[in-house]
């Protein structure tokens, strides 16, 4: 068992629901106990969808367990088909139904429905939401190819076409990312064959092999499928996440290469305001700001590149909850000379943030929680997210407009430059003191957070009162680092009592 306060991902059947809900003409029959319909409100409330997810639950109860739950499931499939007349049906079990082993696949196939019925095997005690989504997308596409007629492929057509794979329901900014990327492809003159799963129909999935290449927009969802499509149909795929200016340019270059298009014009023009905003002198104070990044691997890796190369931050922590992408995140972390954190334990993440003592946290809804406790500015870059991160306004993460959004939303929680300077000079103002929230955020002064107690065995030196007072004069967002460095210095020097002298010696020692 694992003690869990917070879970970064839902169970795998939620991933399957995200695929079914994203699509049209698909129905999902889920063998699940009463109560599992809570998942509907993720879609109707958090994403604010105006329709019920296309999911029929068997919602069995204890009294049903003595009877024939298999018959209950068969009836649910038959009724769902009659009522919704979908073009394809997926069937599967939730965690509890997995235990009673009714074999949804066999039962549904025995009904001999006139549409493709695709069974899902989602091991709920081993795997999680994103894995479930990827598996469902892959199985469903395989099941639909061949089940629907498609026109013969013309091999010698002039314009190359691509598929965009990955956007789902309940995806973080998928709606606007997709708009941004399709616009970009339109400007490049690339023609799009199928976008899936968002708004696709089963018959559209069947046409996926017609394209010349695939764009994997969200590897967590679509990498499995794209890998299979490459093996099966020889379709190359692009796995560059176009988040940030640099990555967007790399993406354009790769698309141009696969589509035989000249993209020189698009690559040379400045299409994002981030470039200039970040170069303007107002942004100078952002240089070297310590940032901790956590999320799904795709967004975390992309955010690290933007933070380091496009905003001039120092990446002091990089991690993901997605074990499937551990290798990718470890490779990325090497670029910043740090050790990647791969964990789905929220308490471990909290400890890592506390230890790294960043000035900014870029993370998920949970890191917001941690950052709030620690009094650190925070911006959300990845799912899981809550209702406020499904905004009404246009808010992509990807492409050039996405870069504009990133600049604004990451800089916003930081204290503005002038205020930061004034705090460095005058520490005892009754309103604008070091422990107050940034005044542009309008918040009330926050309670001074106790500085993190470090669990290093070397922090044995005692702080003198004078040094302690001097430490308080250091701006709050670097104070933790100064304390740690001083203690490390004291330990190295064998100093037992830290005085002002030790403090400044340490400052000189580490500033080289």
């Amino acid at each position, binding site marked *: *068992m*694992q*003690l*869990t*306060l*917070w*879970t970064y*991902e*839902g*169970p795998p*059947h*939620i991933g399957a629901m995200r695929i079914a809900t994203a699509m049209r003409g698909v129905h999902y029959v889920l063998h699940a*106990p*009463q*109560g*599992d*319909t*809570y*998942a*509907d*409100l*993720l879609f*109707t*409330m958090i994403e*604010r*969808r*105006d*329709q*019920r997810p296309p999911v*029929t*639950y*068997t*919602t*069995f*109860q*204890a009294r*049903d*367990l003595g009877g024939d739950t298999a018959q209950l499931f068969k009836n*649910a499939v038959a*009724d769902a088909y009659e*009522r919704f007349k979908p073009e394809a049906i997926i069937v599967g079990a*939730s*965690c*509890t139904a997995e*235990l*009673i082993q009714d074999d949804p696949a066999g039962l549904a196939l025995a009904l001999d429905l006139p549409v493709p019925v695709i069974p899902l095997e989602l*091991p*709920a*005690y*081993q795997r*999680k939401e994103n894995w479930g989504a990827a598996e469902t997308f892959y199985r469903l596409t395989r099941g639909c190819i061949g089940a629907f007629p498609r026109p013969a492929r013309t091999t010698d057509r002039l314009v190359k076409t691509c598929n965009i794979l990955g956007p789902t329901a309940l995806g973080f900014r998928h709606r606007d990312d997709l708009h941004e990327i399709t616009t970009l492809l339109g400007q490049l003159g690339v023609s799009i064959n199928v976008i899936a799963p968002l708004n696709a129909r089963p018959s559209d999935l069947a046409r996926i092999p017609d394209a010349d290449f695939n764009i994997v927009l969200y590897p967590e969802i679509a990498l499995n499928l794209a890998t299979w499509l490459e093996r099966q149909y020889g379709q190359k795929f692009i796995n560059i996440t176009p988040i940030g200016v640099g990555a967007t340019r790399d993406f354009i270059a790769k698309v141009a290469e696969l589509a035989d298009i000249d993209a020189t014009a698009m690559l040379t023009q400045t299409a994002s305001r981030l470039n200039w905003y970040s170069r303007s002198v107002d942004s100078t104070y952002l240089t070297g700001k310590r940032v901790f990044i956590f999320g799904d691997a795709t967004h975390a890796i992309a955010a690290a590149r933007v933070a380091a190369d496009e905003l001039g931050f120092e990446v002091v922590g990089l991690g993901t909850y997605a074990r499937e992408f551990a290798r990718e995140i470890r490779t990325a972390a090497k670029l910043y000379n740090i050790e990647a954190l791969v964990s789905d334990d929220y308490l471990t993440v909290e400890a890592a943030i506390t230890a790294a003592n960043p000035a900014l946290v870029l993370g998920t809804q949970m890191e*917001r*929680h941690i950052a*709030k406790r620690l009094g650190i500015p925070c911006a959300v870059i990845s799912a899981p997210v*809550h209702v406020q991160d499904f905004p009404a306004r246009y808010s992509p993460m990807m492409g050039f407009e996405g870069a504009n959004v990133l600049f604004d939303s990451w800089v916003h929680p930081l204290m503005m430059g002038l205020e930061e300077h004034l705090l460095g000079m005058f520490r005892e103002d009754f309103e604008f003191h070091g422990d107050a929230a940034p005044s542009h955020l309008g918040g009330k002064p926050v309670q001074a957070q106790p500085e993190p107690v470090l669990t290093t065995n070397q922090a044995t030196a005692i702080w003198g009162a004078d040094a302690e007072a001097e430490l308080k004069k250091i701006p709050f967002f670097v104070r933790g680092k100064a304390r740690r460095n001083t203690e490390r210095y004291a330990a190295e020097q064998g100093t037992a009592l830290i005085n002002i002298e030790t403090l400044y010696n340490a400052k000189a020692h580490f500033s080289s």
Partner: protein
Amino acid sequence: MSDVAIPKIGCGDLPVLRERGQREVFCGLTGIVWLHRRIQDAFFLVVGSRTCAHLIQSAAGVMIFAEPRFATAIIEERDLAGLADANDELDRIVDQLIERRPDIKLLFLVGSCPSEVIKLDLSRAALRLSKRYTPALRVLSYSGSGIETTFTEGEDACLAALVPELPASPAQSLMVVGTLADVVEDQFRRLFAEMGITNVGFLPPRRAADMPPVGKGTKYILAQPFLAGTAVALDHRGATRIAAPFPLGAEGTALWFKAAGRAFDIAKSKIDDVLAKPVARARAALMRQRAVLEGRTIFFFPDSQLEIPLARFLSRELGMVLSEVGTPFLHREHLAEELALMPADVQLSEGQDVEKQLDRCRAAAPDIVVCGLGLANPLEAQGMTTKWSIELVFSPVQGFEQAGDLAELFARPLRRRALLKV
């Protein structure tokens, strides 16, 4: 209001439409969301799957930003291999938890669908852990699984688990059973004191140390309609139930207090004196909402078992017309007084087949639909006005002073619909 306002003809004998099919309801685990705030030194450890953890986190929404007093021990592949192992694992998890939260006095092991299907014996685990941690910590268990419980039945299961733990006392006392908002509890305590009933306990209490005593002299009155199991457990301890409608609205609350007063032989004139002012205040507050609600039709999807008392309140005190009133479970004995007050032509339904019920709802085209969050926005998109039902469990709605607020909860979506020009 006459003392015995219960008319002879009600819907007590009317047939109820019983349906089985897909049920769009929460499981009993959801009760943790409010119970952990009510009993301030209790911790709720769900033994279940990632789905259970995900459910509570989704239901708790933003509130989870505060350090929550609940968590999930997620069953993993290796736990499914053998039961002995699962018990060791549970002990390890509880050790870990107590280390993190040493302030906890009462720990509930909450059963879920997976833990029940694999027949993990949580009551034995609770006994074992209680012995180990006595006297600093008591460990109890109950089921909040979807296969056993629907939404508020989780509270019933929790309170029923508490009943054997209550101290024994033969003294005359009144016990109010069911979670109430702090403000409502305080109002009720004051009114009982004015009536001359002073030995009043509340279950659940705000702290584990304040458990109300129970015994032959205890008379209990239910403040919530979903407490079937708790009532049985209290009966076993010798307590007797005071039958009454539920304290929703001016009328319901007055009848509730009168029933309690009669049970303690308080003079009728005394009870009337105490209730006169708050009843008048509540009626005045209701008059203002009546303008919005009178003559409007309302349709209830099943959710919390509060539906019948709410429908009674809305029809009798606000003049609403009842379309269908659905409830997940209808306890005829506990709801006898309510059913007697319902209009004779009401369509009651117990259980659910959600697709068929949606068909009926669309055909009835009510002015307002009370339903869960999974249905609310889709119905709004179809042009219906909805009131999401969970709010009725999370808001202070019982008692005289809240009667107007309760009506406002139903009036607000209608006023909003009239207000919006987009």
